[in-house]
């Protein structure tokens, strides 16, 4: 987003200083919980109870070791599981949604309008509504708690069921000039050739946006993973974190915070690396007019 040069004032006037002060105050309030989380993750047990300030008096990184090994299975395994699920979800979404978007946004075929409307209809469909029957179906296929317990989480992602990404890509493809398709067609390219040589390379920005969002959402997702994963060694990070809550003893607070911090680290790194794109991605997809 480029800032409009209109109404630019030189900073320094009283109003602008006031505005800045207010904004900084809001930032402080908004970021406080994050810093507090970070501080608490390196506090000793005694300090967690007695010192609720941001900084620990005694730096206690041991919480990270304790949290990592708190359960019978190391947290490293949970991280690997989460990486696997999120990574494959990214691949599935990027691939399948791009295929669907190319068909719905670019090709002419019978009932296209109808399918497009159906796709838009599924945009607002809450996932919670489908969880019970999906669980029953996947279970009857032997996929829940099967040899590969992540299939119920992954199969839908390879079938373009995230309508949001399909929609985002259709919108994006509108910006790719149709003349390119036509030129390629005249040069003898089939719709597959056009997809391979025109749409796929030019859709990279939309693919990247999709990849980032689908990674973050899957990494943070709890509901589906809670429902479909039943044995400890298959747990992903969010599900494993709730185990800390079950053990109600106060002594686990430090390790719990340490693992919470670690669990947010990938999302935070994505944020640092792609913040422009994230903020703009939500713009372009949000404003469908």
């Amino acid at each position, binding site marked *: 987003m480029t*800032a*409009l040069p*209109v109404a630019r*004032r030189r900073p320094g006037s009283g109003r602008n200083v006031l505005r800045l002060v*207010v*904004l900084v105050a*809001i*930032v402080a309030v*908004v970021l406080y*919980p*994050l810093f*507090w*989380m970070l501080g*608490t993750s390196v506090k000793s047990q005694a300090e967690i*109870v007695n010192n609720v300030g941001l900084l620990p008096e005694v730096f206690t990184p041991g919480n990270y070791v304790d949290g990592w090994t708190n359960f019978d299975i190391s947290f490293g395994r949970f991280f690997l599981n989460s990486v696997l699920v999120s990574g494959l979800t990214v691949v599935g979404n990027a691939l*399948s949604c791009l295929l*669907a978007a*190319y*068909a719905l946004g670019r*090709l*002419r*075929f019978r009932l*296209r309008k109808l399918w497009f409307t159906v*796709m838009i209809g599924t945009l*607002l*469909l*809450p996932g*919670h509504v*489908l*969880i019970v*029957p999906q669980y*029953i*179906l996947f279970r009857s296929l032997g996929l829940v708690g099967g040899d590969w317990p992540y299939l119920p989480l992954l199969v839908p992602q390879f*079938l*373009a*069921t995230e309508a949001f990404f399909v929609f985002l890509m259709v919108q*994006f493809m509108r*910006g790719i*000039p149709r003349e390119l398709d036509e030129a390629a*067609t005249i040069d003898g390219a089939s*719709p597959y050739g056009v997809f391979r040589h025109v749409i796929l390379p*030019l859709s990279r920005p939309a693919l990247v946006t999709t990849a980032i969002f689908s990674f973050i959402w899957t990494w*943070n997702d*709890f*509901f589906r993973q809670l429902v479909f994963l039943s044995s400890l060694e298959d747990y992903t990070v*969010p599900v494993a974190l709730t185990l800390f*809550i*079950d053990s109600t003893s106060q002594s686990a607070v430090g390790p*719990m*915070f340490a*693992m919470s911090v670690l669990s*947010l680290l990938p999302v*935070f790194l994505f944020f640092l690396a792609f913040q*422009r794109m*994230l*903020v703009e991605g939500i713009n*372009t997809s*949000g*404003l469908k*007019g």
Partner: protein
Amino acid sequence: MAVTTAPGRTPRTGPAGPRPTRRRAGRARLGEGLAGYVFLSPWLIGLMGVTAIPMLLSLWLSFTDYDILTPLSEVRWVGLANYERMFTADPSYWHAVRVTLTFALIAVPLKLAAALGVALLLNRAWRGVGLFRSLFYLPSLLGGSVALAIVWVNMFNRDGAFNSFLALFGVEGLPWVSDPDWALETLMVLAIWQFGAPMVIFLAGLKQVPTELYEAAAVDGAGAWRRFRAVTLPMLSPVIFFNLVLETINGFQGFTAAFVLSNGTGGPVDSTLMYTLKLYISGFTDLEMGYASAMAWVFLVAIGVVTAVFFSTGRFWVHYSDGDDS
């Protein structure tokens, strides 16, 4: 409204060759029709297998007493019994409805107000806007996670950070998260904390408001408040509408934080029993999947009705500038 455009996407291929003959075009169209379905097939399979069939299965299940333990073939048809029980014999169901509505009715307007307020503060071209925008957006990325919910619960504990903040003013706080009167409020604060996502959308909307309108209003002697009421709000109404619909539907579906706060029970005293949590407990703790399916369908219909109400009332307050005489 802005349509996605990519930078540097100017067409480089120039000359358009001769148009293909009609016959070739016809064959190409046939091929395109087939290709359309080839490309669409994963989505179509997903639509059928992951969406449509489960929806129908769920509708059927809602008229049965299915629990996961008995095989599907031995399921008993119970007619409207699940719906009857939900509406007349299960007080905790109505409780969940009330909790969910309260949550959405309070948290969504406050979240949008915060989003709009901060967006207005940021809506000036100056260095640093990008940094602020990103920092405000960060909670929207992190806030839905289990980790943040854990932090939140601890922050609003009896000896959490919030109470020590209150202590600065000599106020003695409550154990907010274990107080049935306040537990839901802490979840609302968590939702409002994530105002960054709608804020970013507001900011983009504000960029589209033509500055001439403000200038004209200023010439006519309108003060800041008047300009906000007469120019900003109407020009922004499509974006407000979009955010309102999206956030309300999201608000109805809050699950993670309520689960973490109550350790999956909806407590204390059902005060955080969000609809989706009630559905989860019925389906996956009590294993009453028929009953949970009925709940899911009522939820779906309710969301449809709410969306329809939004769209039908939107006519009266959402102002679209194209095709208008303004």
